[in-house]
């Protein structure tokens, strides 16, 4: 589903990605962990076609992300640091707008379905500005999955969520994984990230320095390994 080859990204003299190679198969749920500034957000933005790599190639679902941007974007659901929602509109109005942008078939039914799924069916007519941070994040998840994307890119999806809301989000991700959606989840929260993923990558100073299936990982040992890897110069 994702094929990234030697992807680099520089912002002036600062190198955010220093040659990332990444292959993720269809239906995989992969966790990308790394400290702040490791390049997680930059990588996800490049995969989502929001940013162009300085060099290297990205293919999503077999399509070249730089040449087939429109078709690639139709396959992607992206959850960013921001909710990408309009505060002045209700949850339903926001989703209806995005349904029109993605040309979602039977949009009314689909909107009802995703709102129920994230537990906001009763708040659909409330303006986004009146929702709590956790509710906004759940609505953002509803927006990201509204158009049945094959690939979900989630950037720090647990940020700002309390324990209960984070558990709900984990359940939702596991459910989406069962539907054979490909999920790449970037987080700096080791516990949550590792427990939900089938495969774990560590990104440090713009490079993938660790890539193992979840089964091979013991959390206490992994935390130690993570600290050792992310504290040393590559």
């Amino acid at each position, binding site marked *: 589903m994702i094929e990234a080859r030697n992807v680099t990204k520089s912002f002036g003299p600062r190198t955010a990605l220093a040659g990332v190679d990444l292959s993720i198969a269809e239906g995989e749920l992969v966790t990308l962990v790394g400290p702040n500034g490791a390049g997680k957000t930059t990588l996800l*933005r490049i995969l*989502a*076609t*929001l*940013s*162009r790599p300085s060099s290297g190639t990205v293919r999503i679902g077999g399509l070249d992300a730089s040449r087939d941007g*429109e*078709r690639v*974007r*139709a396959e*992607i659901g*992206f959850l*960013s*640091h*921001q*909710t*990408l*929602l*309009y*505060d*002045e*509109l209700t949850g339903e*109005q926001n989703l209806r*707008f*995005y349904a*029109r*942008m*993605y*040309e979602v078939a039977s949009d009314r039914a689909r909107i009802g379905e995703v709102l129920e799924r994230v537990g906001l069916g009763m708040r659909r007519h409330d*303006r*986004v500005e009146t929702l709590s941070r956790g509710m906004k994040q759940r609505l953002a998840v509803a*927006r990201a999955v509204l158009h049945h994307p094959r690939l979900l890119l989630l950037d720090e999806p647990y940020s700002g969520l309390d324990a209960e809301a984070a558990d709900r989000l984990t359940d939702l991700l596991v459910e989406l994984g069962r539907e054979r959606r490909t999920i790449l989840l970037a987080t700096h929260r080791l516990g949550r990230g590792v427990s939900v993923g089938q495969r774990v990558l560590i990104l440090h100073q713009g490079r993938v320095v660790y890539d193992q299936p979840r089964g091979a990982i013991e959390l206490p040992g992994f935390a130690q390994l993570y600290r050792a890897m992310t504290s040393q110069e590559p």
Partner: protein
Amino acid sequence: MIRGRALQFLRRVAAIVEKDIAAELHSKEVVSAMLVFSVVALMIFSFALDLRGEMAEAAAPGVLWATVVFAGTLGLSRSLAREQQSGGMEGLLLAPVDRSAIFFGKAAGNFVFMGVVEVALLPLFSALFDVPLLRADVLLVLVLGTVGYAAVGTLLAAMAVNTRAREVMLPVLLLPLAVPVLIGAVQATRGLVEGATLAEVGSWIRILVVYDLVIVAVSLLTFGSVVEE
């Protein structure tokens, strides 16, 4: 195939415009700020200048367009700032649409907001300055001038919105580039107010039409690069 793509394009443009109008109906922050500014500006002009008779005919077009332009700049800045809040622009860029649909949608929304303010302004202007502006030929000039201003303003607001001093940056970038449309609009309006026909101010109307076409074409070609990282 081409017809299908065109209809899809128009549906997305309409979705953006309707979203902007729905958000504005709730917040009222763009139109109300423009309206308040316009009314205050007109009141100041009416007290500062004794605009009656021939003097009014000579000065009214300049007063009208100065008010429209500064109110429009205020609205453009707010409209794009709304997209930046909570990452709305990023949401638009993630959608599987041509970037030009985003430009058309935003520019059309800005045109609607400016149009609403102009429609509210004209009767007040006519009453204060005793110059009848609620006429089809003057409305045509207003539409042509507003199309060009909204188009170039949307492009430049998209450029300025990520800068730290966007409120300062937008007028600094916009006003010099809008000079042709402002000269054309002021001259055409003045001619019509002084009794000329549309044919007699045809050269100014042609400048407005050419400016609109050029600026829309340039915006379509460059908007994608402006909004992408």
